[in-house]
Structure formats: structure tokens, C-alpha cells
């Protein structure tokens, strides 16, 4: 009787999880999706607690209390911290998988069927490397660790050797389960590999890497389902894994790069040598007053946000600018590049937090054809994703990357601290165009000055 209830609860939970993801397709239904996910989770937990083999509850209760005490404040983090929070939660998910795998191994060894053992070592390898890898990503995003990629000679060979060794030992353990001493070695190597994998990753690659870690965490949960013969775990893990995979593919496409190139290419470092070939060229700069006057007389303004906007925490000032211009009848829209920021969808969340309606946020493919009609394109803290060199300069490291057609607007304004090149180390020819005005300064205060000008300076017209 109990077992039948558990199975039904799991089945209903699986359906609810699938519905949850289906409802995420539109902002109008997305919150219903969260509710479905929560219901599914409650059902699954209740079902599990009723399982006959679950006999003792005190440690479960204590762990759930501690987990909630940590989880609730983590859900209250400011939106600017969402990328690092996400990395941290990948780490927790992977840790759980690795620990459950380890516990299962020591409970049942050496009487583990070969297939189960195969799934178990996969669970432990994926869980361990995702755990340390996600912690490293967290460290970089939180700026506890240097964000620039760290590379050294023979790095890829070292990394691949360590991963190969872990897989080799895992195979040996599957073939010969009595060699128990191998198991901790596999864990150790996987933990080290996770750290080494993220060391050469720079900030601009974070969206891809976070998505990839997401996929790994999902796959390790699915592997746990194989080990425990739990269909619900397999389904939920597979859903998470496919989501991570799709996001990684989208991110890679948006940078015109392959997985291998992201993981082993060490972007930022490589190209610094390529820059600096350009002679001193002149740029046109403008003051907040001049910029505000131009914005005010425009019909349509496209704002292009990038990571720089997040760093300067300028999203609320941008919202004030949006309000001021909208009030004057200017059509303001936002052009969002898929890899803008540090994780998929980062800019959308920040702008939504600042109360900008989501129907004003447009994806690259939708807004690109409209740039020629825009009076002003205002770039705030974005760089490489606006560089026209990606379109025509075959020697440029970012050649082939899909970009926002900012250069096609009638006037281009770029808010930037100085003339330093972007993450890819490439000079942006956008800055030297005749129609471009450079607005030098901190994004937050510059936008603030423009807003002041727009609201106070009624005599401008």
C-alpha cells in the first residue's frame, strides 16, 4: 500500500516538473510553473518520508532545518548577485550527488552490480568535479579569486591527463570492484579536475560555463537515479541536464565558439597580443548635457546594456532615464545580446528588477533589423557584442560572432570609463566612427547626470 502511494506520488511529481518547465515558456504563466514545481517537490518528499526503508527521522529533520536556514537568506540575495548564487547552488546540488554516491558505495561494496557501479562512478566523478568547478566559478564571480583567465604552458595536457586518469581508475573499479582503495583516488582526481577546469575561464565565458556546470549537476542527479533505481530522480536530472545543455549551446552560438574552445581556449589571454596595432585615432566625446539634448530630440532610442551596467549597478538610474525619455514621447527599447552579463538572461533580470516592463526588452534577432531606424543607440557597459569587426574583419578574434547592429543607428553613444579594450582584448572600431559619441565616466553617475538634465533642464528645447 505504502509503496503504491510512493510510486503514484513520484509519477505525479514527474508530471508536475515537466509542466513547471513548460509553463516557463512565457512570463505570463511562469509563476504557475514555480507553483507546479513546488507541489511536485512536496509530493516527492512526503512520498519518500513514507518509504518503509526510511526508519530514522532525527538527522533528516536537523538537516532540513539547517538547509532551510541557509537556503532562505540565499534566496534574498540582491539580483546583482544572481550569477554567483547560481554557481553556488550548482555546487550544492553536485555535492549532494557526490556524497550520496560515496555513501552508497561504502554501504554496498563489493556487492554492487556492474552497471550500477558504472552509474555510481559517473555520479561521483560528475558530482565532485562540478562541486569544485562551481565553487571556483563562485569565487571568480564574487571576486574572491582573480576573474582574469589564468593560463600556463601545457595546461590542457595536465587537465586532460587528470580527467583521463580519473576515468581510467573508474573503469578499473567497475571491472574489479574489490579494489576499494581506488575509490577515494577517483574522488580526489575529480575534485582537482574541477578546480583546474575553471582556472583558465574568464568572465565573458561565464554564461557558457555556468550553463555547462548546470548540465553536469543535472546529469549527476540522473546518475544517482540510476544507482538508486529511482525514476523520479532520473527524470528530474534529465530535465536539468537538457536545460543546461540547451543554454550552453545557445551561449556558444552567441559567441560563435565551440564547447572545446570555451573550455580549453582561454579567450581573454590569447588575444591581448593582437591588439595595440592601431595607431592613435581620435574619438568624439560629449558631456551629459549634450548627450541628454540629443536623446531628448530623438524619436526612438535603443539602449544596449552589458556587464558594465551590472558592475556599476546602474540599472535603477537607467530606469529613471527610461522614464524621463518615455514621458517625453521617446520610444525607448532595450537590445539584449544573449551573452551580455555573466549568465544567461542576466540583463533581463536586472532590468526587470529596476521595473522596466519586459515587453521593452528585445532579443538580438528581433531588434537587429530595427537598428537602422533608431535615432540613438546608447551602449551602457557593453563592448565586444557591439564591435562591427565581428562582421567583416577576418583577422579579429571575435570574427563571426553575432553582434548587435549598433553601428547602423543614426547616432551611437557609448558610456565607458576609458578607452581600454573589451574582454577579448580587441579594439572596438565602433568608437572611432563619425557618428559615435563617447560618454566617458561611470555608468551610474553619467546616466544620473543625463536624467538630471532631462528632468531639470526644461529650457533645453
Amino acid at each position: 500500500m505504502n509503496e503504491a502511494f510512493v510510486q503514484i506520488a513520484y509519477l505525479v511529481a514527474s508530471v508536475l516538473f515537466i509542466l513547471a518547465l513548460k509553463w516557463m515558456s512565457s512570463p505570463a504563466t511562469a509563476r504557475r510553473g514555480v507553483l507546479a514545481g513546488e507541489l511536485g517537490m512536496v509530493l516527492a518528499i512526503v512520498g519518500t518520508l513514507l518509504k518503509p526503508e526510511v526508519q530514522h527521522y532525527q538527522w533528516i529533520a536537523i538537516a532540513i532545518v539547517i538547509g532551510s536556514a541557509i537556503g532562505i537568506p540565499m534566496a534574498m540575495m540582491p539580483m546583482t548577485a544572481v550569477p554567483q548564487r547560481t554557481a553556488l547552488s550548482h555546487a550544492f546540488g553536485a555535492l549532494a550527488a557526490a556524497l550520496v554516491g560515496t555513501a552508497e558505495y561504502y554501504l554496498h561494496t563489493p556487492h554492487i552490480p556492474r552497471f550500477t557501479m558504472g552509474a555510481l562512478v559517473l555520479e561521483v566523478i560528475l558530482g565532485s568535479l562540478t562541486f569544485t568547478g562551481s565553487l571556483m566559478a563562485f569565487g571568480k564571480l564574487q571576486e574572491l579569486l582573480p576573474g582574469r583567465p589564468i593560463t600556463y604552458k601545457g595546461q590542457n595536457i595536465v587537465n586532460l591527463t587528470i580527467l583521463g586518469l580519473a576515468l581510467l581508475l573508474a573503469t578499473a573499479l567497475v571491472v574489479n570492484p574489490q579494489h576499494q582503495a581506488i575509490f577515494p583516488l577517483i574522488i580526489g582526481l575529480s575534485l582537482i579536475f574541477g578546480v583546474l577546469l575553471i582556472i583558465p575561464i574568464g568572465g565573458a565565458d561565464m554564461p557558457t560555463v555556468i550553463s555547462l556546470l548546470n548540465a553536469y549537476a543535472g546529469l549527476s542527479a540522473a546518475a544517482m537515479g540510476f544507482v538508486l533505481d529511482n525514476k523520479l530522480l532520473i527524470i528530474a536530472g534529465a530535465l536539468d541536464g537538457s536545460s543546461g545543455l540547451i543554454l550552453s549551446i545557445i551561449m556558444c552560438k552567441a559567441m560563435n565558439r565551440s564547447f572545446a574552445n570555451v573550455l580549453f581556449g582561454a579567450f581573454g589571454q590569447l588575444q591581448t597580443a593582437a591588439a595595440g596595432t592601431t595607431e592613435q585615432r581620435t574619438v568624439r566625446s560629449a558631456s551629459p548635457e549634450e548627450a541628454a539634448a540629443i536623446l531628448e530630440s530623438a524619436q526612438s532610442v535603443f539602449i544596449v546594456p552589458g556587464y558594465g551596467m551590472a558592475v556599476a549597478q546602474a540599472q535603477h538610474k537607467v530606469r529613471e532615464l527610461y522614464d524621463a525619455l518615455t514621458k517625453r514621447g521617446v520610444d525607448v527599447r532595450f537590445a539584449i545580446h544573449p551573452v551580455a552579463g555573466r549568465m544567461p538572461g542576466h540583463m533581463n533580470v536586472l532590468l526587470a528588477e529596476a521595473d522596466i516592463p519586459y515587453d521593452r526588452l528585445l532579443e538580438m534577432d528581433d531588434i537587429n533589423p530595427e537598428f537602422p531606424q533608431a535615432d540613438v543607440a546608447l551602449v551602457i557597459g557593453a563592448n565586444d557584442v557591439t564591435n562591427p569587426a565581428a562582421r567583416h574583419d577576418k583577422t579579429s578574434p571575435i570574427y563571426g560572432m553575432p553582434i548587435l547592429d549598433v553601428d547602423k543607428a543614426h547616432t551611437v553613444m557609448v558610456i565607458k570609463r576609458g578607452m581600454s579594450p573589451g574582454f577579448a582584448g580587441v579594439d572596438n572600431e565602433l568608437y572611432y566612427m563619425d557618428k559615435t559619441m563617447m560618454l566617458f565616466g561611470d555608468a551610474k553617475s553619467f546616466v544620473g547626470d543625463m536624467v538630471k538634465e532631462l528632468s531639470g533642464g526644461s529650457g533645453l528645447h
Partner: protein
Amino acid sequence: MQTDFATSFYIFVLATFLGLEVIRRVSPLLHTPLMSLTNAISAIALVGSIVITGQQRDTLSTVLGTIAVTASTINVVGGFMITDRMLRMFKKRTPAPKSGPAATGKPENGQPGRS
């Protein structure tokens, strides 16, 4: 731990396929909440952790299980909460009569925002 691997593989492959189809349709607008939602859902690893801990077979498995339950609970609680928090911020409001792409006839979310 008897496992019927053929069935498990069928389920895994079909669920992956279904996941790819469903998630392909998610608007890029919501990619960040999507990631935190799938993260919360895959914290279903909590189920496996509870089974290990609840058996209390030996000290090692109980300790590892307890840590695993803690880690998964963090993701379940934190994941669902922050996803909802993010989604509440996405509001539609087409200002004035504009010629934007706007209004596709979707019902208004109607949820008051939080600050």
C-alpha cells in the same frame, strides 16, 4: 539495490528528449529564472539523500547523508524562492500608444511587484 537498467535508460532518454523540446520554447527573457528553477527541481536529489540518511545503516553513510540532505534542502528552498522572486519582477506595461512589437494578447500577469 536491484536496478532494471533497460527501463531506466528508456526513461532517461525520453525525459532528456522531452526536456530539450520543452526548454527550447523558453523565452530568452527568462533564462536566468529557468536556470534557478531547473536547479531547484534537480535538488530532487534530496529524495536520495533522505533514503540514505533515514536508513541509518552506519556512521559514515549517516554523516554523508545528513550533509547531502542539508545541501539539497538549500537548493530546494532557495531555488524555488528566488525563482518566484525573480518572476514577480517581470511585469508587462506597454506605455502609451507605441508602435512597438508589444501586446501579443497575452493575459496580464497582474501580480503586484515587490521592491
